């Protein structure tokens, strides 16, 4: 394996006495689709916020795209894309305006920005609705658009926080095609999800329980290890031991 794109070393975040993320250590390779699983309150979001440079670790280290998240969060931000479960587009801006805005925020300048916008509209087949407000689009389209916008500036890594919540299985499947496409182009995909069928699509999966990393491997090896028929069973076996509730 070449130099990993994400390296977490005993990454910890405490809020008072509460240890949200407890010394997690893992690597993610370039171009990998890395599933980050865990029940609600297991510490996924906190870990992800630290990796995005939004939150400073209490102890431990993490390097993302070669930069330390604690000391160089601005450099980290330059190199990542982010999409949350809320799709995070402006509903009363048009499709084209959203692309321009978010591209511009990441510092894309006009000739490049215009070209990328055209490419994106063509690839997603959204030319006809480019002038329409995002609010009027179906959920599945919004979601694909949000993802495409998140990787418009060609980040090295894209962080996805439960990106497929509330979307039907067919659309979810289409969305995963986009993720594979991005990964094939060398973008590392770091994704949290509640859907265990999606966990099966990942190259490697980590499962957090009570702030600690309880398991990390390929879906097939995890299933073998726990003697489970599906990722669902693996997750259930691990999460059953959790002390923390919602």
């Amino acid at each position, binding site marked *: 394996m070449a130099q990993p794109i994400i390296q977490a070393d005993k990454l910890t975040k405490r809020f008072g006495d509460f240890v949200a993320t407890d010394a997690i250590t893992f690597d993610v390779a370039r171009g990998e689709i890395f599933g980050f699983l865990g029940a609600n309150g297991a510490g996924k979001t906190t870990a992800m916020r630290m990796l995005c*440079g939004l939150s400073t670790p209490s102890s431990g280290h993490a390097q993302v795209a070669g930069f330390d998240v604690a000391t160089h969060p601005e450099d980290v*931000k330059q190199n990542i894309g982010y999409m949350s479960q809320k799709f995070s*587009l402006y509903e009363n801006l048009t499709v084209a305006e959203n692309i321009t805005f978010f591209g511009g925020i*990441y510092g894309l*300048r006009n000739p490049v920005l215009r070209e990328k916008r055209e490419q994106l509209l063509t690839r997603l087949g959204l030319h006809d609705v480019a002038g329409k407000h995002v609010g009027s689009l179906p959920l599945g389209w919004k979601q694909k658009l949000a993802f495409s916008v*998140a990787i418009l500036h060609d980040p090295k890594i894209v962080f996805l926080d439960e990106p497929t919540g509330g979307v039907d299985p067919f659309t979810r499947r289409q969305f995963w095609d986009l993720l594979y496409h991005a990964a094939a182009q060398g973008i590392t995909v770091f994704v949290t999800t509640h859907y265990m069928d999606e966990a099966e699509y990942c190259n490697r999966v980590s499962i957090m329980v009570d702030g600690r990393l309880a398991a990390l491997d390929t879906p097939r090896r995890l299933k073998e290890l726990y003697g489970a028929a599906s990722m669902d069973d693996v997750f259930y076996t691990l999460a059953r031991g959790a002390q923390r509730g919602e």
Partner: protein
Amino acid sequence: MQQLALFIRKEFIHVLRDRRTLLILFGMPVMQILIFGFALSNEVKNARLVVVDHGRDVATTALIARLDASRYFEVDQVALSPKALEAAFRRGDVKVAVVFPARFYERWQHGQEATVQIIADASDPNTANTLTQYVSAIVYDHASEQRGVQAPPYGIRVETRMLYNPQLEGAPNYVPGVMALVLMLVCVMMTAVSIVREKETGTLEVLLVSPFRPVLVIVAKAVPYLLLSLVNVGSILMLSTWALGVPVQGNLFLLLAESVLFITTCLSLGIFISVQTSSQQVAMLISLMGMLLPTILFSGFMFPIENMPVPLQVISNLVPAKWYYIIVKSIMIKGLGFAAVWKETLILAGMTAGWLIISVKRFNIRLA
């Protein structure tokens, strides 16, 4: 810098595409000025005035004609008995009555005391006060005019001059108040709601993960509302000048500069609220209850602060609108310069700096 421009443009799009926001932003100031300026005026026009004339001589006739000629009264001349007069007051037909005694002219001419009795329905104290003042003023006017011809009177003379607003009109009082109110409402509520909305939709998170600096998010949010509020100040001043006949007496640029300061105070309050709350409804409620109500109660434009109990007077000092109201009144109505308002300006600037520091700090803590 280009990112900031892009962001500000986006904020403008948000405002301009949302009809409700637009309506609040531009409809409200116009409506409030018109309502306060015309409908809610405490001026009295064409009030029914009953004259009970026991004198029936040249002096009373002249005075009655004069009262009738004023735009404040419509004189109803009847010879009511005191009992009938009381009954009329009870029914509410009459708001004010003027009683001339018998031999009024004669007494006046002979240097005796000539008394005019004014009776007013004080169940509405403000109106009663205003009406009796109007009647007194007209009577005194008449008396002093006659004096020029007649022999000089004896005794003490009271001469009242109502400074800055000789006609005791309502508008000079309301315009500064409405300006404070509108700016408070627009800047605090709209800023708070627009930031919290981004929290709700999750776009704020995306912005924070981007290389765009968090402080610039605040700046970009504030700039459009600052500009739009200035447009509001402009439209209020124009309405005030041309529709209400209350022009700016002092320096227009000083007034605008002070307005920018107050708008900044409001924006920092709005940002503070948005940092503390996570839903648009809560942000709106806090802005309305926490900002609008104290502004109406404690800025001094509706209820005189001097009449309040001391604890409330102390509280009123915390309301930024109070200081802005004083500033606008001084500059706009009294035509005073910066020397007269530097203290208020300093207080407002101090408040703004304080809120701004707290808000930005809080905003950053939220991220950590």
